[in-house]
């Protein structure tokens, strides 16, 4: 038991020491128990169905939902 605790402490200490290494960068870790990153069967390369709401703010109209871009609004999606 004590040996296992020591092992965990050693692992942590090792990790903190490694933060000092020059040739390292942070890792973008994704847990396998979660919905995977990346594309989906139906959702395509985004991996999710996206709705974008953009408040035009000029006439108090309700939010619009579209995949098209608006050239009058700096190319933002509607």
């Amino acid at each position, binding site marked *: 038991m004590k040996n296992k605790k020591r092992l965990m402490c050693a692992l942590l200490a090792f990790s903190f020491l*490694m933060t000092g290494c020059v040739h390292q960068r942070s890792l*973008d870790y994704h847990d396998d128990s979660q919905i995977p990153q990346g594309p*989906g069967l139906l959702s395509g390369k985004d991996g999710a169905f996206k709705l974008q709401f953009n408040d035009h*703010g000029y006439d108090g109209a309700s939010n619009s939902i579209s995949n098209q871009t608006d050239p009058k609004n700096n190319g933002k999606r509607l």
Partner: protein
Amino acid sequence: MNKKCIFSLAIPLFCVSAVSQAVEMTVSGQINRAVMTTDNGEKTETYFVDNTNSSTRFRFSATGQITDTILAGALLEMEFESNPSSSISRANPQISSELQERKAEIFFKGPFGEVYLGQGDGAANGITHKDLSGTGVVALLGHAHMIGGGTQFVEGNQTGSTVSQTIANFDFESRYDRIKYQTNQFGPLTLAASIGRKDDMVYETSAIYASEFSFGQFITGFGYSTEEVTGGADNNDTVGGSASILLNNGLNAALSYSQLEADADYKSENTTFRLGYKSGRHASSIDYGITDDRAQKGDKGTYIGLNYVFKPVNWVELYATGRVFGLDRENTDFDDITVVAMGTRIKF
């Protein structure tokens, strides 16, 4: 610092930008189904299950910038799991699906870090299965009971404890209603703490180190949780962590350790070792795990498993696993349990 000064600092953090900002809502999900066969030494059974390692689920997420640097959002994640692979058994051969809440939380992310409020992961949830083998969809590190966990050990006509009751790790307090704070990454280091409530108060803290090097990748996490118990009993204290290394040539290894102390003179422990190999769209691993004193003092549960995952395209994972569970208990001679499963997870 006087009150005026505090307000003058706080207002820019929370005021909405005058510029119109796009708000985005995303919907995503997955289905994860498998065929599982169990043999407890007396009888062989086959079930059609939902893989509890990563159950069938869907989620809605909405995010929007409230200032140039602060993102606000809401997440609703539900699971819909029929015949969970962790609990299906001869005694419960069919378990109807129920729509269950996994996460229902709001969050704010900015230069100050990340704050979560609502039902979601405690600060240490998942700390014991940090793993880079690529086989987690069929075998989360240290969670062997997720496949075949409902199967009972038998000795002749006598049935004993199930796999889940005797061979499992202690991955802290899972999901519950809480407030959680998580730092932004200090280089590869992330710290988190949460306070929440189940039947009584729950406190958790964790540290995660995740980094890429010239030789490969390395991740480790360490956590601690305590759950207060009503009625004056001792708190449930859990401590543990995991570590995994993946070399550029595909070889990888992982270790998970966790300990639950629910009573002053009684501790349960789980230790799992993993060796693996990744090559292109293929990943495989072999595990060995030991759980001491889980169902009762003196129990020793062991597990050995072989796991394989193939990703023909990025949204499909095909997988298979075979594992053998054993239980040593005083004055008993339980048969080993063999479990074989194969299935697929498809992200839609």
